[in-house]
């Protein structure tokens, strides 16, 4: 190394290094702070909700129906309604969405029609939920005569979550390496066999994760269900598809809007129940995903 190739000014170089390292540290701190915003907000919310609602939370709260008297009011109808709605929505939306995603990824010709469908699905995922409520009211409640029932609500929410599940499923299907498809085709597999035996099992963890995220959104929906006639006050649980129903967010809203403090505490307890339901769903998703991953 000759003298002219060496850094001319060692001091300048050191300063440059120090500045560079400082910039790195600052960036890390800023990103860390940004992460904390979400976590702290959630923690504060949870602490507040638990402080208000925890003492209301008991077996009686879970097993009682709504009441004018706060001490007798419970969440049974709303919890049952939410479970009905989300289960039915999953049963309807999951197979339809997965089938649609498989068609779009594995079968559909690369034509303008396919592209148009694809664009539409992406747009539908961004349509406000109240619009789905109006659609549900017009289509299921009125045109199909399903009335203000559990099935109307579930069908409406199915339409709402389908675009999200389809896109998540497509993403998962695309992530399956083409080498796996080729290997299966190379052994004389038909397209259906390739999809059923290789592609779908490999994509399933991703599809399930997307589905549960979409359903979590559905559990928290209120607006479209009000449109299709979920009621705020109900003294029975749905026994069939055509029964009236209420759901947790609606019950919570109903309590929050009352003047008495006791009802606010009930609302907080309702929120705890809703969050528990959500966390349970996420846990189920993780268990399903791990089971699929370990099997493959």
């Amino acid at each position, binding site marked *: 190394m000759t003298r002219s190739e060496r850094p001319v000014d060692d001091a300048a170089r050191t300063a440059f290094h120090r500045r560079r390292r400082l910039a790195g540290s600052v960036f890390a701190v800023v990103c860390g702070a940004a992460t904390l915003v979400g976590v702290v907000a959630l923690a504060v919310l949870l602490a507040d909700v638990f402080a208000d609602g925890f003492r209301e939370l008991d077996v009686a709260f879970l097993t009682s129906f709504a009441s004018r008297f706060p001490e007798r009011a419970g969440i049974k109808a709303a919890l049952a309604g939410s479970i009905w709605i989300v289960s039915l929505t999953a049963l309807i939306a999951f197979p339809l969405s997965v089938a649609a995603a498989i068609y779009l990824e594995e079968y559909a010709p690369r034509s303008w029609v396919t592209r148009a469908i694809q664009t539409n699905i992406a747009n539908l995922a961004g349509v406000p939920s109240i619009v789905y409520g109006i659609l549900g009211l017009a289509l299921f409640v009125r045109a199909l005569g399903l009335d203000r029932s559990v099935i109307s609500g579930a069908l409406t929410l199915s339409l709402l979550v389908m675009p999200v599940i389809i896109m998540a499923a497509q993403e998962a299907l695309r992530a399956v390496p083409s080498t796996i498809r080729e290997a299966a085709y190379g052994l004389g597999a038909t397209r259906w*066999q390739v999809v059923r035996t290789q592609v779908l099992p490999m994509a399933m963890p991703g599809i399930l994760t997307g589905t549960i995220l979409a359903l979590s959104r559905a559990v928290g929906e209120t607006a479209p269900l009000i449109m299709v006639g979920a009621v705020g006050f109900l003294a029975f649980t749905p026994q069939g598809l055509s029964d009236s129903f209420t759901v947790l967010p609606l019950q919570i809203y109903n309590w929050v809007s009352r003047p008495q403090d006791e009802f606010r505490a009930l609302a907080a307890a309702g929120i705890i129940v809703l969050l528990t339901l959500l966390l349970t769903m996420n846990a189920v998703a993780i268990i399903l995903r791990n089971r699929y991953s370990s099997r493959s």
Partner: protein
Amino acid sequence: MSTTYDIAIGSEGPALEVRDLSVFYGETKAVDSVSLSVPERGVVALIGPSGCGKTTLLRCFNRMNDLIKAARVDGAVEFGGVDLYDASVDPVEVRRRIGMVFQKPNPFPKSIYDNVAFGPRINGFQGDLDALVEESLRQAALWDEVSDRLGDSAYALSGGQQQRLCIARTLAVKPQIVLMDEPASALDPIATQRIEELIYELKKQYTIVIVTHNMQQAARISDYTAFLYMGKLIEYGPTDAIFTNPREERTEAYVTGRFG
């Protein structure tokens, strides 16, 4: 027009007869009017610089190009007197009888056993699956290494073992021809040597067409060599002749390492 090279074909006739085959990707002509005969029970090597169309040509032999939407094939590939590209031919059946081993080992994310059993299962195999799996793994010289852990994930194997597993998987559906697309290019020299020894054993029973970048490999394992350049078949003949006494100047330039 392409030149057709005569190959000494045994009494059994050619395994594949390629006639005036061209492949287009959109507007690009990847393979240009290639004609050649692949003899039964032997190894044919396809060599040539990157992008010369050798892999594309190989993938025509079991209609894997059908899976690429933009690809279009002209000409004929005759297999047992039938053109593989005839409208009456089912590409799924073609791929069952003409198997393929790929460049990168691509085992399924399943157990070793299930990898080998996959092909027979989807083809409705009725019989002793355990015996077939063992036979296939023995043919691929992998049995001794995995016989006590058939239930383990195929991903637990080394790269070379995975590639032999892929060969076993291909053999399990009893193909007549095995196509290999640079089967050793992702492997280390020792694993490569094992694959080459395996090919040497397999050619007693199977017709093998292999694409390779490695000219020494082509010289070591093949009976016939085809040199492709820019989509055209430049020269095709016995491997000895191609490497020691090529008729074409470009072949000589390539096999002696002057380009490519």
